[in-house]
């Protein structure tokens, strides 16, 4: 085993903490993007608490790895990670989406420390991440930019403009991670707008492709570490995930793409994630 049982257990607990923080952001009776947050929580935990280099005291330190949510609607998952990492105060989570809150419905770099760029209009994050990766290279900073995309979001044409450009520009410090939870807002992707399969598309565009189980911490860590050996081309990690993972009643249910929890559901979810 490449990673110790303790390390895996520590990161799995971080992922549960992110899921709990996501629920804290939502609270009771207010709609939130719980499904996509929970499907990406393990990946986000691995990035923030294993892979990425950053200084929680100085989140603007140029010598940092960067994480960008292209699927900006799961901002609450990132907020939970930022709180867990000590970049933002945990008390902020409960203020999410309140008038005047530092935590907006979608990421806002001017309001939230640790947010790299405003996203939410889908399909733009890979391009922004490509710009950051090119900027890191140009500035001589040997760090990476990680961009988390949704599998529904892949329908946006700009994703493929960026997918075409990144290998041409040699952005081997750009890592795309697709949260392939197979659901979009309205139903299963296969029933709505079938963007799958993803691997041959990225391969055709010249990317190094890794496919993993996005809830298997060891597979996530192996993939993230394997990227470091890839030179000359960008890498995409296609993470097969379950929407709503960890909250039993939300798993694979499209309604929890952006749904509210009642008091009973909130308690049940928190118990399951304890």
């Amino acid at each position, binding site marked *: 085993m490449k990673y110790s049982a303790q390390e895996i257990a520590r990161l799995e607990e971080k992922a549960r903490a992110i899921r709990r923080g996501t629920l804290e952001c939502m609270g009771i009776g207010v709609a939130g993007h719980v499904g996509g947050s929970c499907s990406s929580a393990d990946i986000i935990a691995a990035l923030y608490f294993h892979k990425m280099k950053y200084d929680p005291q100085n989140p603007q330190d140029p010598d940092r790895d960067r994480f960008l949510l292209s699927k900006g609607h799961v901002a609450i998952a990132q907020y939970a990670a930022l709180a867990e990492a000590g970049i933002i105060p945990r008390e902020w989570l409960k203020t999410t989406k309140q008038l005047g809150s530092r935590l907006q419905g979608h990421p806002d770099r001017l309001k939230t420390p640790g947010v790299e*760029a*405003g996203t939410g209009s889908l399909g*733009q994050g890979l*391009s922004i991440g490509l710009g*950051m990766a090119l*900027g890191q290279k140009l500035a001589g900073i040997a760090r990476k930019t990680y961009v988390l995309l949704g599998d529904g979001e892949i329908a946006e044409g700009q994703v493929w403009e960026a997918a075409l450009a990144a290998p041409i520009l040699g952005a081997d410090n750009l890592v795309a991670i697709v949260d392939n939870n197979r659901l979009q807002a309205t139903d299963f992707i296969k029933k709505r707008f079938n963007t799958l399969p993803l691997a041959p598309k990225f391969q055709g565009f010249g990317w190094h492709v890794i496919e993993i189980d996005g809830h298997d911490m060891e597979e996530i860590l192996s993939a993230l570490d394997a990227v470091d050996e890839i030179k000359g081309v960008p890498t995409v990690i296609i993470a097969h995930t379950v929407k709503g993972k960890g909250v039993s009643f939300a798993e694979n249910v499209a309604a929890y793409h952006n749904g509210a929890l009642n008091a009973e559901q909130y308690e049940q979810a928190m118990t399951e994630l304890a």
Partner: protein
Amino acid sequence: MSYTNQRKAYGETLTALGAENPKIVALEADLGNSTMSRLFQQAYPERYFEMGIAEANMTSVAAGLAQTGFIPVTHSFAVFSGGRAFDQLRQTIAIGKLNVKVCGSSAGCSDFGDGATHQSVEDIAIMRAIPNMTVLCPADANETVGAVRAMIELEGPCYIRINRNDYSNVTEEHAPFKIGVPTVLREGRDVTIFAIGYMTTLALEAAEALKDELSVRVVNVSTLKPVREETLAALAKGCRGVVTAEEHSVVGGLGSIVCQALRGSGLPVELVGIEDVFGCSAHSYDEILGHLGLTQEHIQEAARRAAKAAR
């Protein structure tokens, strides 16, 4: 040496600034020979990104470069750099106040041959409506030199409108460019003409032709945003009427800005601009401007109407 072409002034100035400031990077969407960003590429190939014919991606990549401390400048024709990448400019760059510069080249109807698809009649309206965006439209090649420098020195998103064609200068060479400050090109008492871009040249011609009839002040409004309403109102004060002259739609452009600034003043305002229509192909710049009613004769008539309408 004085330039007589805004694109040339633009490309050479950006290249000169590139020597002073290693943070400037240029992005191009395969129109580098037209926008003259190629001059920057020749000087600093490592700071130049050919992004292919993909303006949306180019614009978001610029956002990422700004976030790593660079000063990216995107290039395309005005219809595309502003229009095609509107959402990218709005969502990440303007909301985030990122230090991205946008060159809208071959603006207005200056690409006369290519027709409606390539003529930007609404780029100022689009850019001006975006919070945090600065919008510049230099009058001529001389002013372009100062405007490009001011754009780079400004911290924040900025759009600059560049004309494709050769014409003589109406502003002084080496005059400092101050963002937000309109300049008086000709003094007059009866009518004030506010003009932008090449229309300042035509406004000055109209003022000269009218000199035995009317005393006409000509003001160059090379910053469309931010520009203080009080400043524009003060420049119109004492006149009997006001004219605006723009190579842009009267919807959301200079005419709208001036009408908004002068509301309640009682001053009659006549708008010379594109009357909510698209352009079309023509064999010359003068031909398309004439077709759209953008000539010095049209400005003269508007000035007479404005003076006559005064109570």
